[in-house]
């Protein structure tokens, strides 16, 4: 069988494009992180980004966590009742939520909400020359626009996930006690007897990484968008898609690093 030589240029372009993208992203990330630690600092912008990423995402993350906990309890019961293992439901719910579902679902929801908003805002600023205007007004756009968002992402996601953990467990508790016949005391004892500090901490570490990824992809795609409204739309889509894929891929890597011995 002959090798299709006409595919070589396309493959080469794909490889070069990927290398270029990864290189640009790496340089952007290093530059953004370095500006987090160098003055001037913009506490007002960090606060604003915290509100955007954290506070305004709270309703959607809270509802997601609550319903996920409820569904998890129901589905676990369906499976475990076949093996007379209903007593494991509480531990399954709390471990699933704190170690996995809390950070991943919160990350995906925040990516769709705050990451998209970031990309759209910076993209609009790019195509309307506002980012260039910052440079002409003695302000480094990386420091002013990117660094506060990166920092806010790393701070806000763990806080959101902490709340999501509580609400997820609460969802499981509500369904188990109201619908599945568990007594509240038994359920709570079972929940906390199987929960370790490292379960929660590792979930929060994942959340911090996901927060960084969401802000990074939102800023990166928005910052380099071009071509008017269509370009901003493409940047927004790309921010959400790339952040979501990276969250899922990094989730596996972090799970392996943090949990497997």
């Amino acid at each position: 069988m002959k090798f299709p030589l006409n595919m070589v240029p396309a493959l080469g372009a794909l490889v070069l494009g990927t290398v270029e993208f990864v290189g640009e992203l790496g340089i952007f990330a290093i530059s953004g992180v370095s500006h987090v630690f160098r003055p001037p600092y913009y506490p007002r912008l960090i606060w604003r980004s915290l509100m955007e990423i954290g506070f305004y995402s709270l309703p959607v993350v809270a509802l997601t966590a609550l319903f996920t906990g409820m569904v998890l309890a129901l589905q676990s019961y369906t499976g475990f009742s076949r093996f007379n293992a209903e007593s494991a439901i509480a531990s399954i719910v709390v471990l699933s939520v704190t170690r996995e579902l809390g950070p991943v679902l919160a990350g995906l929801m925040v990516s769709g909400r705050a990451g998209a908003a970031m990309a759209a805002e910076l993209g609009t600023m790019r195509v309307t020359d506002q980012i260039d205007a910052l440079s002409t007004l003695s302000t480094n756009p990386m420091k002013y626009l990117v660094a506060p968002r990166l920092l806010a992402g790393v701070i806000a996601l763990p806080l959101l996930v902490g709340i999501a953990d509580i609400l997820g467990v609460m969802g499981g508790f509500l369904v188990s006690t109201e619908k599945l016949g568990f007594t509240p005391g038994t359920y709570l004892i079972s929940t906390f007897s199987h929960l370790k500090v490292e379960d929660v901490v590792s979930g929060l570490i994942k959340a911090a990484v996901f927060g960084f990824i969401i802000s990074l992809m939102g800023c990166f795609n928005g910052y380099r968008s071009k071509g008017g409204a269509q370009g901003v739309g493409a940047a927004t889509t790309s921010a959400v898609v790339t952040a979501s894929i990276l969250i899922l891929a990094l989730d596996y890597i972090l799970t392996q690093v943090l949990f497997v011995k």
Partner: protein
Amino acid sequence: MTQPKIRIRGLKKAFGEKKVLDGIDLDVMPGTGMVVIGGSGSGKSVLIKSIIGLVTPDSGVIEIDGEDVLKASRGRAHELRAQIGMLFQNGALFDSLPVWENVTFGLLAQNKIRRSAARDKAIEVLAQVGLADNVAALSPSELSGGMQKRVALARAIASEPAIMFFDEPTTGLDPIMGAVIDELIVDCVKRLGSTSVAITHDMASAQRIGDRAAMLYEGRVCWTGAAEELLTSTDPVVDQFTHGRAHGPIKMALRR
């Protein structure tokens, strides 16, 4: 002999295969207004962006007060460019900030004023461009196109820059508002004693705000002269461009 405020020699910039600037030579004398004209894609914006540091040229010299900003350290280049004010084509006002913060943004960034005094300073500068104090609290999206241009002009002059750039200042405005903005530009530049460089396609505007004019064509300065000579120039490229003729050397170049 007086040293040019801005001196450009052999400036080149290409994007891929496309040579946008192909050896620009240009002098802008202190206290004068230079108008740069040229067709779309002729490199006018790239030229200005190169001077203010938004685009890095491939080669050439850009001197401000005799000092090459391309060879200066990052800090020194930043200092040299801190004396530049810029009015962007579409205003480029920051949507997320009220008008007063837009106007004093550069002053606050350079720690030239305290935040508590910024609003009063903004009202003072807004008055210079004919805007009432109640505009200060509004958001840019609440302003008309003409008012946005005025606010953008106020932002550009707030730090009293020694050099001012105007990127198509009258684009998108009706002729009367365009004339008003031109008058404000001339007034502000004169009052501050600044050197100015403007890009425009509007010949009436070019003659109002410019003392000298330069025409860019095929990546080079093909003509320089007094702004008032723009419409009477016998240079075939300038003549075709300024009179908007469909036939002439510029169209020939497009066909090539």
